[in-house]
């Protein structure tokens, strides 16, 4: 990863110097080793540019804002991030001509919250030794398996393919990330009785503080103004007044991004309450796959979306009652 980071910095400097781009969108070093912030760099700020195991943030959505500015911007995208960018092209939210994309190799990103949840407190540094993380803390050295500290999205990695790019920076070494079945938990939930499933989601969604981090980070939520932020909409709300709203906000959002969600996993990564929001999206993705055939949003620029493309083979609306189960 260190080698890729060095190559990235070199390319960023070169592309700025030859005028191909006038700025660089990447990750900026923080106060600690894990708190990287997405940032727009020019040549003199690149000393703070960093790419490491904590560059989990998907930079695709920032390109909507960048495309409104003058000149071309360089952005570094990990393989899964390129699906989000491609989907934004399909939705005409970014201008491909104004973005220079370098695809960068990724071996899975680490989730500092998972490390904390293991009861490891006061982390001050982490180094990777093979498949193990050696964690320095105020309270002594700790260890954990790297795979136990990966972000949820990385456990179900889409693979090392880049679906949109101008050039690639990879080491060429063979490695594997993830390997989990992303629908395993969804299938588990489907197998529950409606009552058990309701209890599961109530338990999770009752933690929601309606901070909107999931919505604001989501590349598929790119409305200029969300209906829930519009005081004139009649349904604007800044808090969940009751458990009905707690449930419905997230379910409605999942409906809105159904068929467009690339399963980038940002919603769950940023949730301050640790709600597994990706499970709602994956339920929709699984249903779309089963009803209309395998579909991956953002995989290309030509396939028609199953939910906006009528074919005679489409399932009838009665599928809802057929599959609804008893309650």
């Amino acid at each position, binding site marked *: 990863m260190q080698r890729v980071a060095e190559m990235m910095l070199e390319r960023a400097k070169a592309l700025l110097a030859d005028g191909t781009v006038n700025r660089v969108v990447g990750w900026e070093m*923080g*106060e*600690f080793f*894990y*708190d*990287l*912030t*997405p*940032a*727009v760099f020019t040549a003199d700020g690149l000393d703070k540019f960093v790419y490491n195991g904590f560059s989990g*943030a998907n930079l695709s959505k*920032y390109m909507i804002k960048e495309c409104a500015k003058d000149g071309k911007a360089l952005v570094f995208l990990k393989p899964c991030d390129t699906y989000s960018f491609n989907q934004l092209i399909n939705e005409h939210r970014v201008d491909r001509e104004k973005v220079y994309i370098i695809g960068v190799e990724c071996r899975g990103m680490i989730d*500092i*919250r998972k490390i*904390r*949840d293991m*009861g490891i*407190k*006061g*982390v*001050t540094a982490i180094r990777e030794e093979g498949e193990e993380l050696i964690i320095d*803390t*105020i*309270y002594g050295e700790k260890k954990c398996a790297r795979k136990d500290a990966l972000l949820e999205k990385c456990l179900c990695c889409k693979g090392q393919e880049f679906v949109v790019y101008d050039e690639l920076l990879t080491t060429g070494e063979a490695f594997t990330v993830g390997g989990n079945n992303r629908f395993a938990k969804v299938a588990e939930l489907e197998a529950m009785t409606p009552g058990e499933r309701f209890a599961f989601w109530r*338990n*999770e969604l*009752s*933690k929601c*503080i*309606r*901070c*909107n*981090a999931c*919505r*604001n*980070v989501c590349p598929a939520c790119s409305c200029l*103004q969300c209906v829930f*932020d*519009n*005081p004139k909409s009649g349904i*604007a*709300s*800044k*808090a*969940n*007044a009751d458990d009905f709203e707690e449930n419905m906000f997230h379910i409605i959002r999942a409906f809105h991004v159904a068929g467009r969600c690339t399963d980038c996993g940002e919603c769950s*990564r*940023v949730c*301050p*309450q*640790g*709600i597994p929001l990706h499970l709602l999206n994956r339920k929709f993705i699984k249903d779309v796959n089963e009803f209309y055939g395998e579909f991956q949003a953002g995989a290309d620029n030509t396939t028609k979306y199953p939910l906006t493309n009528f074919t005679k083979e489409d399932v009838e609306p009665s599928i809802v009652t057929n599959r609804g189960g008893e309650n």
Partner: protein
Amino acid sequence: MLKLSLNRVGDLFAKIAEAQALYLPVEKAGQVDYDKWTADAKVSMDHLNTAKSAKDLFFPQVERMVDFKMEGKNIEIKPHALSDEKFVLFGVRACDMKSMEVLDKVFLAEPVDSFYAARRMNGTVVTMACSEPEESCFCNVFGVDAAEPAGDVVTWKVDGELYWKALTEKGEALTEQIKALMEDGDEAKVEESKAAVREIMGKLPLANLNLAPFQPEKLNEMFNSPKWAKLSEACLGCGTCTFVCPTCQCYDIRDYDTGHGIQRFRCWDSCMYSDFTMMAHGTNRPDQMQRFRQRFMHKLIYFPSNNDGMYSCVGCGRCVSKCPISMNIAKVIKALGEDKDE
């Protein structure tokens, strides 16, 4: 000073809950937040900071204030009764306790906020000294001693025992209720533990944040700093920092039209939101840089200017660990405080 074996802490909670409601850190779906104690609640005694702060107990996220009922030309006004639930809030850390001083300045100043005042009056706060601070902690920067919190009762966890000391009249009254479970504790043990925690606090990465540049007379200079643009560049405009913050106290008052009446409620608001303080003429902070700047100027300049120098940050570190893009008050203090280097 009294003490009780940590193995018997369940008895203590049961005893407290006999006489009033008890709220304490409870784990639910992997997250620890304040919740009402029940015999089968998964109480977390080791968690440092709850995800949400203790402010919810006095200033809940949503609160009905008054109902209006319309019949013909008559409007009936039905104010909601103030909370009369007597409760004990257990396990509050020193930083969150300090945040109540900040909130008191806002809600107990004239005109007194009766909803908040009622809860403050009915609540007895039992604090717990920290034993294993996180790297994201910086309460000491704001004059908070993690080893010696304020509160009605203060407790320490040392060598498998819970040490208990009443600090106020309310605390004495609570101590009377539970005294039978306790035995006399040795103050020296607690002193040792305090010294150890203070030593850790002093060595934490954010322990030396410099607040000296944040003075009322620097208002214009800070406000006009070119650094805000860069600091706020990646801000998502979500409300995470404000909602997990123990001192953020802004709320919105809204009317819900039931079809045959109005329910007026207030709910937390966030200066990060586009419709924050929206008025008839529109919003006075149209872009995210201005909203972002408002949050930190309020905490570091405006609030202390109006409250005898008290900053409205207590260094709990929640924004440090929760912000989706890892931008937080520690980074802001460092960036703006470094202006002399330019």
